[in-house]
């Protein structure tokens, strides 16, 4: 490193030039990657919707973003229409405080907001091996199977914990004390289990109250 060039002038100039160069490099990289990053986010959003409503095609989802929907997480929800144009149900975003993170869930409900069609956890950072098992998928193939080449391309399975929410009526979710009677909890992770279930149930109840009751009253 130069010793002579330690003047204040030199220090300022070099740092300024360096930061300018860094800014250019970062701006350029951002431009190059921005499209793909947006596409990724959209893909994840769509994937969550398709998982809770497998029978609905991509353009069957209509986003509702109005003052009426302001109560929902994210300020919006989706309406799901099947191929014949019939309203199949709604997709809501729910969020709940887990053990070590705020868990985000997409909840699919039927058109009357009485039955949960399915859930998809879209974000969690719970304890690996315990709460994080809410997203664990049972993989049947062993390493040996892969090495030997016995690999069947099985489609991605639904996480066991989330699959149990499919097609459950709201009154299935009975909570006695701190435990849901009909839900298979995660081993050693009551907080995570309850966070996900509470969030899903609360979102459905709130939705029913705000959206459906209000249209009844009109």
């Amino acid at each position, binding site marked *: 490193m130069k010793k002579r*060039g330690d003047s204040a002038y030199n220090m300022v100039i070099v740092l300024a030039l360096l*930061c300018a160069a860094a800014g250019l490099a*970062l701006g350029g*990289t951002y431009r190059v*990657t921005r499209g793909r990053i947006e596409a990724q986010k959209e893909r994840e959003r769509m994937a969550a919707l398709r998982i809770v409503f497998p029978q609905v095609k991509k353009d069957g989802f209509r986003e509702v973003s109005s003052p009426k929907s302001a109560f929902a997480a994210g300020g919006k929800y989706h309406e799901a229409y099947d191929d014949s144009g019939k309203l199949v149900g709604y997709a809501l975003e729910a969020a709940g405080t887990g053990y070590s993170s705020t868990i985000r869930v997409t909840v699919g409900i039927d058109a009357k907001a009485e039955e949960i069609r399915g859930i998809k956890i879209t974000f969690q950072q719970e304890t690996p091996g315990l709460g994080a098992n809410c997203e664990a998928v049972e*993989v*049947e193939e062993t390493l040996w199977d892969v090495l030997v080449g016995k690999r069947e391309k099985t489609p991605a399975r639904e996480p066991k914990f989330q699959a149990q929410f499919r097609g459950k009526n709201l009154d299935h979710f009975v909570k006695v004390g701190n435990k849901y009677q009909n839900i298979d909890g995660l081993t050693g992770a009551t907080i995570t289990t309850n966070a996900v279930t509470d969030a899903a149930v609360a979102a459905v109840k709130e939705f029913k109250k705000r959206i459906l009751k209000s249209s009844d009253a009109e």
Partner: protein
Amino acid sequence: MSKWRIFKNGLFKNNPVFVVYLGLCPTLATSTGIRDGFGMGLAATFVLLGSNTIVSAARRIIPRKVRIPCFIVIIATFVTIVELFLSAYQPALYKSLGLFVPLIVVNCIILYRAESFASKNRVFDSFLDALGMGFGFTLALLLLAFIRESLGKGTLLGYTLIPGFEPAVIMILPPGAFLTIGLLMGFFNWRKNRGRTAKCD
């Protein structure tokens, strides 16, 4: 030092994790699985290569008194570039590594090589040094991840090893990390020191 020696230095003899004991935080946090460990190793290596090269190229114009801020700007820029490319092309890995991608900025290994080597050596030599140190870091991560994933999840690369095996979850939690790295360090030190008699003055 020959070019080969410069590269080899960071692999075993001066392995940044097991000999110099640097970069332990990301090592412990991201070695829960081989996929994550390898991803972190490659990301850090890319940053090392970029920062070592630029620091070396600019070594005659960076004033001594502000060298650390300059190094940090360079390192942070490369880390952000890695972050953007990861979230664009490897979103699953990016989500998995989470907080530890931006934390590469403060990975001591990178600042260590910038200060002790790149700022005093030629560009190509610095590039080789970065490659060796980066690979050494990656090797350490892979070794730890191999042990922790197989014992703590019962899988390797996500595939089950022995069906029906109940893994020791502690291995993928912090205590397991410290246990593993501590035992490994002890082992490597024992190997290094055996046959040497203690100096008694």
